[in-house]
């Protein structure tokens, strides 16, 4: 932890706070009926996405999940086109064609949120294979949920990445549930990271609400991948504040559990730690709070004011690069 420089700490706090602010705002907009379709929020899991992506550059890749806003923001995607995408506007990150579940920015190395649980594993092997074949040092991080760990694709992807020594890091975001199903029920393994041995790769379980724990585990794994030594599996234990998707009444959460989660807030813990140790100041924190609040408000404004896509122009474009 000593090695994290101030710039990185400022960046990390900003990204985590931006994710939280964005997601809280999205929850409100959804409740107002402004956002159509399925929306899955990342609030509570900020330390995972940001802790891991701290070690990536724009040239590195990530694959994401249905719960992808946080990954987008951590990877540096601009929140204005993101918000416009959630509205379905023409200025959206995907021109309104993808929506929350398919939000992407390939130029930023974000290979897309994904509506299919476990689909990111094979895709991550692909960008990993590209890097290995072309001899670049690009790393790919594959984020997946605890529920996704039971999908055959993740098994295949971890085995393939291991035998081919692909520069891929598998990050399991174990937030305790797949929809309403507790992970202790759906998963036979005692720790999801126990599965690393099945693929002869390093495995670790860390506290996913502790930015510094995630940061350190990711550093080792990403370094290893970058050096061509192959993949790793990191399980991050945490929780989500919101329901599975917006509209979920969360009956399967007890009040105790909600309180327990609030007491482990990843952003509050981060703040406490950096303030206690004098790494960041109250002013710096306040500055970022104000900045991220402004960014999100501007994003909402941008989205609200943006035009709708014009079906006659775009409905059937972008299906193919060429189709005679």
């Amino acid at each position: 932890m000593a090695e994290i420089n101030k710039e990185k700490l400022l960046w990390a706090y900003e990204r985590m706070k931006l994710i939280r602010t964005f997601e809280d705002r999205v929850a409100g907009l959804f409740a107002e009926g402004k956002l159509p379709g399925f929306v899955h929020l990342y609030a509570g899991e900020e330390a995972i996405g940001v802790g891991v992506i701290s070690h990536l550059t724009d040239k590195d890749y990530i694959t994401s999940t249905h719960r992808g806003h946080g990954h987008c923001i951590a990877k540096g995607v601009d929140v204005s086109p993101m918000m416009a995408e959630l509205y379905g506007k023409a200025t959206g990150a995907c021109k309104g064609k993808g929506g929350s579940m398919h939000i992407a920015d390939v130029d930023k190395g974000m290979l897309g949120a994904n509506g299919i649980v476990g689909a990111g594993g094979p895709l991550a092997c692909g960008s990993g294979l590209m890097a290995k074949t072309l001899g670049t040092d690009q790393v790919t991080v594959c984020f997946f949920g605890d529920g996704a760990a039971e999908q055959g694709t993740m098994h295949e992807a971890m085995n393939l990445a291991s035998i081919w020594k692909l520069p891929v890091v598998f990050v399991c975001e174990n937030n305790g549930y797949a929809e309403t199903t507790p992970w202790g029920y759906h998963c036979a393994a005692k720790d999801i990271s126990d599965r690393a041995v099945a693929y002869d790769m390093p495995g670790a379980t860390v506290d996913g609400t502790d930015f510094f724990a995630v940061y350190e585990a990711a550093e080792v794994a990403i370094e290893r991948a970058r050096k061509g030594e192959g993949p790793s599996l990191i399980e991050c234990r945490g929780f989500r504040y919101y329901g599975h998707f917006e509209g979920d009444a969360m009956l399967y959460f007890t009040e105790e559990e909600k309180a327990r989660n609030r007491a482990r807030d990843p952003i509050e813990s981060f703040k406490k730690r950096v303030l206690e140790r004098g790494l960041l100041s109250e002013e710096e924190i306040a500055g970022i709070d104000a900045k991220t609040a402004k960014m999100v408000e501007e994003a909402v404004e941008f989205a609200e004011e943006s035009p709708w896509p014009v079906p006659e122009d775009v409905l059937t474009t972008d299906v193919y690069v060429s189709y005679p």
Partner: protein
Amino acid sequence: MATRTLTFSGAINEAMRLEMRRDPTVILMGEDVAGGATLPHMEGEGKEAWGGVLGVTKDLVTEFGRDRVLDTPISESSFIGAAVGAASTGLRPIAELMFVDFFGVCFDQVFNQGAKLRYMFGGKAQVPMVIRTMIGGGFRAAAQHSQSLYSIFTHIPGIKSVVPSTPYDAKGLLSAAIQDNDPVIFFEHKVLYGMEGEVPEDNYVIPLGVADVKREGNDLTIVTLGRMVHFSLEAAEKLTGDGVEVEVVDLRSLSPLDEETILASVRKTHRLIVVDEANPRCSIATDIVALAAGQAFDYLDAPPTMVTAPHAPVPFSPVLEDAYLPSVDTIVATVQSLL
């Protein structure tokens, strides 16, 4: 039989409930079909969180318990395959594939196992199972949660495909599917779940393979299915003002197909439009057109025509999705163009 108003999803729920009461070998499994039922504070009557992602299986675990209503991991191959294995050894499983869009992670168990075991084993097996799955656009659920992939299932011999359009049909067809001795895929349109209709309280079956003429008319036949039945009926109502009487045939069952009802209608009206919200290529729309063109060729007075989604994925944005799906106006205009 006494009837009362029930929603489309309520009718589906009731069919399962009555069949599970009737036959102890009927079980239900799928992701969150109980929904949190394994959590300690969820024990006991009524203590169920979800009953399926859109609540269709609500309260079944309360009545039948966790041994007959099983939450599954996100492992579609293994639980759909388990349904095949269980069906060929004595159970009558209902497996829920949450969205049909997920079929790509588990289709082998459906089309190479469930569909083919009987034939490959020379008739010495049967696979009485139902896969319930959600289809359809209009929910703003984008490209991977809005597809209507029944044409792909219909292409495959050995499975039956059913697409109900009303609460009454949904209940009777699902009961028939559960009692059927072959694998049946039951496609539920997510936008119809809230639709209400009169439904008998008792158990009844609507035989598979029988289409339903939802509206009679002499001027043109619309063959359609699912949510498009209602769009087509609305279009027909609009046209009646112009003195045009459209017959609306609801397929209900794609495989087996009720060729006779379709052909009889086309032979009567001499004009055919197939309305389908799915993609157009190699589809149930082309299938019905080919049937009519091949078997009622001499009766057709106008080219058999299709109103479908374009050859493109389903877009997210509401304005795009509305333009993507067939609309009542397009149906009306297409009818007018053929008269």
